């Protein structure tokens, strides 16, 4: 008889109060030490060829003799280390990621596959141009799509991310003004702007002058006009703006700015709401960066890489930076230096990066655009706007919408609905983590108190949105019902509790050191 019978009925159980595991792990949640604590400098996970027997050195007394301090892991250990770490991350592939201003949409894997074709991934930026005609054609094709989508005549492809694109745009503006002999000193920035806008203006040597918002969450046209003058170089505005609203007066705004001899820079972070629906070139914009990693879904990768091509008006086009692609009789070439550029009638303001831009992102973005086509691009914008308005319509009775709608692709709420609840915007965000959702953008834009900026994107199905809305409503009701314990210590169920950011900033520990290892081992004993 088989005496190995095991109970197969579940036993009702909840973990006794205070029960912890011996390992510190919790089922599938595995703790993972630092590579410096598990690896050694003598371990390696690669097999390299032996050195040739007759190998010679020309390094001489510059040889590195100190221990560098780089631990290695074998291949299986490496795999586990990073897989375990990855499992501590939330991602768009796991669920809704409604970070306002960030456009966290689905990242198709076709794009990854295309970017890895050796003909794109294994070519060198300094290869003879005759051997990279397809790569130059790809850049030129992407440039064409970007120009058509924005209705602008030119595009600078090399900027490496949105903020780099801003730098490109403002430098083109400054170069253009200086070429007119009309150096100016001020850049106007609405108070709702991304922090990169004033930071960029300052990096171009401009003084930043803030324009207030109206009670409707838009640029105050009268205040703008009052600030315009012959010392204003540019207006930097975001449209749709960071409150999720289209700047209704955009045409008058651009006319007023142009009337004062200045130029209009548009932060293109929110292009997702209007692609295929409105062309910035029809509104009077002179320069706008496009975050390929937002609108065109080249993945965010936990903080980059991005890509920030900048479309330019006729006025600014000649000042685009080096290098750029030139097409002559079907042959592609690169203008890499000023004399080559000048031969094409350009007056480049300089160079922004070592090579030609984020080719890997270009391939992904073009793959994404071609998949959508002109019909899909407009549909994506419409669905993004539809989804945001659906959220707005479904939550505005119990949360406080900051401004009258319709909104564009993101819905802005503030914390008035939390008044007298002892629950803050931060608490609400952390409680969302417990519910398995990534929080919305919080405390931005600065123009409303305790901002909650929700951008669902077109990737979310109605079913997902309904689940999100239902959970949000229950959270809001719990907050209003005084269930503060659900919020103040949240997240309760994430891999980590709230982290002490004050301690991190007061005594910054920015790297592992052997001394720290010693103190941790001591603490563990």
């Amino acid at each position, binding site marked *: 008889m088989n005496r190995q019978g095991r109970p197969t009925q579940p036993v009702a159980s909840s973990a006794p109060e205070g029960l912890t595991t011996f390992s510190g792990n919790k089922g599938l949640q595995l703790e993972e030490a630092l590579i410096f604590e598990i690896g050694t400098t003598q371990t390696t996970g690669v097999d390299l060829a032996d050195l040739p027997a007759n190998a010679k050195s020309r390094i001489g007394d510059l040889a590195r003799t100190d221990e560098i301090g780089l631990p290695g892991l074998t291949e299986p250990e490496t795999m586990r280390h990073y897989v375990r770490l990855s499992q501590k991350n939330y991602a768009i592939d796991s669920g809704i990621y409604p970070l306002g201003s960030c456009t966290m949409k689905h990242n198709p894997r076709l794009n990854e596959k295309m970017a890895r074709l050796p003909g794109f991934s294994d070519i060198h930026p300094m290869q003879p141009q005759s051997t990279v005609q397809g790569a130059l054609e790809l850049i030129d094709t992407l440039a064409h799509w970007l120009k058509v989508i924005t209705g602008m005549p030119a595009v600078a492809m090399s900027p490496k991310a949105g903020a780099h694109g801003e730098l490109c745009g403002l430098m083109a503006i400054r170069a253009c003004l200086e070429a007119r002999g009309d150096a100016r000193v001020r850049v106007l920035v609405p108070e709702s702007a991304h922090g990169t806008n004033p930071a960029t203006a300052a990096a171009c040597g401009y003084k930043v002058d803030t324009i207030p918002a109206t009670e409707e969450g838009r640029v105050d046209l009268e205040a703008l006009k009052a600030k315009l003058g012959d010392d204003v170089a540019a207006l930097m505005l975001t449209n749709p703006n960071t409150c999720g609203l289209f700047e209704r007066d955009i045409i008058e705004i651009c006319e007023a700015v142009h009337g004062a001899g200045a130029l209009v820079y548009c932060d293109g972070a929110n292009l997702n709401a209007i692609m295929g629906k409105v062309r910035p070139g029809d509104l009077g914009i002179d320069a706008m960066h496009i975050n390929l990693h937002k609108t065109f879904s080249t993945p965010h990768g936990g903080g980059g890489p991005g890509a920030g091509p900048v479309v330019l008006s006729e006025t600014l086009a000649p000042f685009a930076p080096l290098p750029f692609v030139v097409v002559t009789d079907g042959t592609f070439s690169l203008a890499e230096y000023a004399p080559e550029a000048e031969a094409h009638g350009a007056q480049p303001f300089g160079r922004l990066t070592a090579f030609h831009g984020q080719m890997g992102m270009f391939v992904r973005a073009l793959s994404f655009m071609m998949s959508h086509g002109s019909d899909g691009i407009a549909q994506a914008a419409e669905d993004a706007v539809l989804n945001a308005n659906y959220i707005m319509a479904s939550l505005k009775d119990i949360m406080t919408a900051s401004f009258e709608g319709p909104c564009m692709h993101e819905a802005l709420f503030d914390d008035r609905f939390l008044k007298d609840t002892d629950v803050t915007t931060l608490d609400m965000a952390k409680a969302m983590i417990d519910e398995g959702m990534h929080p919305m953008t919080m*405390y931005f834009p600065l123009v409303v108190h305790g901002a909650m900026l929700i951008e669902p994107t077109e990737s979310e199905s109605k079913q997902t949105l309904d689940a999100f809305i239902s959970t949000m409503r229950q959270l809001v009701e719990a907050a209003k019902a005084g269930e503060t314990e659900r919020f103040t210590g949240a997240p309760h169920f994430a891999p980590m509790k709230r982290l002490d*950011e*004050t301690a991190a*900033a*007061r005594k910054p520990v920015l790297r592992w050191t052997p001394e720290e290892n010693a103190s941790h081992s001591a603490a563990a004993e």
Partner: protein
Amino acid sequence: MSDLKYTEQHEWVRVNDGVAEIGISDYAAEQLGDVVYVELPDVGRTVEQSGEIAVVESVKAASEIYAPVSGEVVEVNGALDDDPATVNAEPTGKGWMVRLKLSNEDELATLMDADAYKTYLEGLE
């Protein structure tokens, strides 16, 4: 407390023998939250009244501190480097930031005394 004079930007100043000690008010320390760093000026620098003289940082904000009076920096509170929390704990005491050699005593008259500052704060509520 009564020996302190205040600005509308919530700095205070205390004068001893022509040297003005400067810090931020209890109200400002409360509003800023946990102070994590104070960027102090070099000794020897001269500053005009209302000129930027230090920066107080919390985790998510950085606030400029403006000189309530003009003068030359003669001493800075280096102890804040090791323990910036002192600004929260004792903003008008050990949490002082800068000592200036006063260059124009008349400027003191432009500042609020403790009662006036209290009234001013009530107006902000």
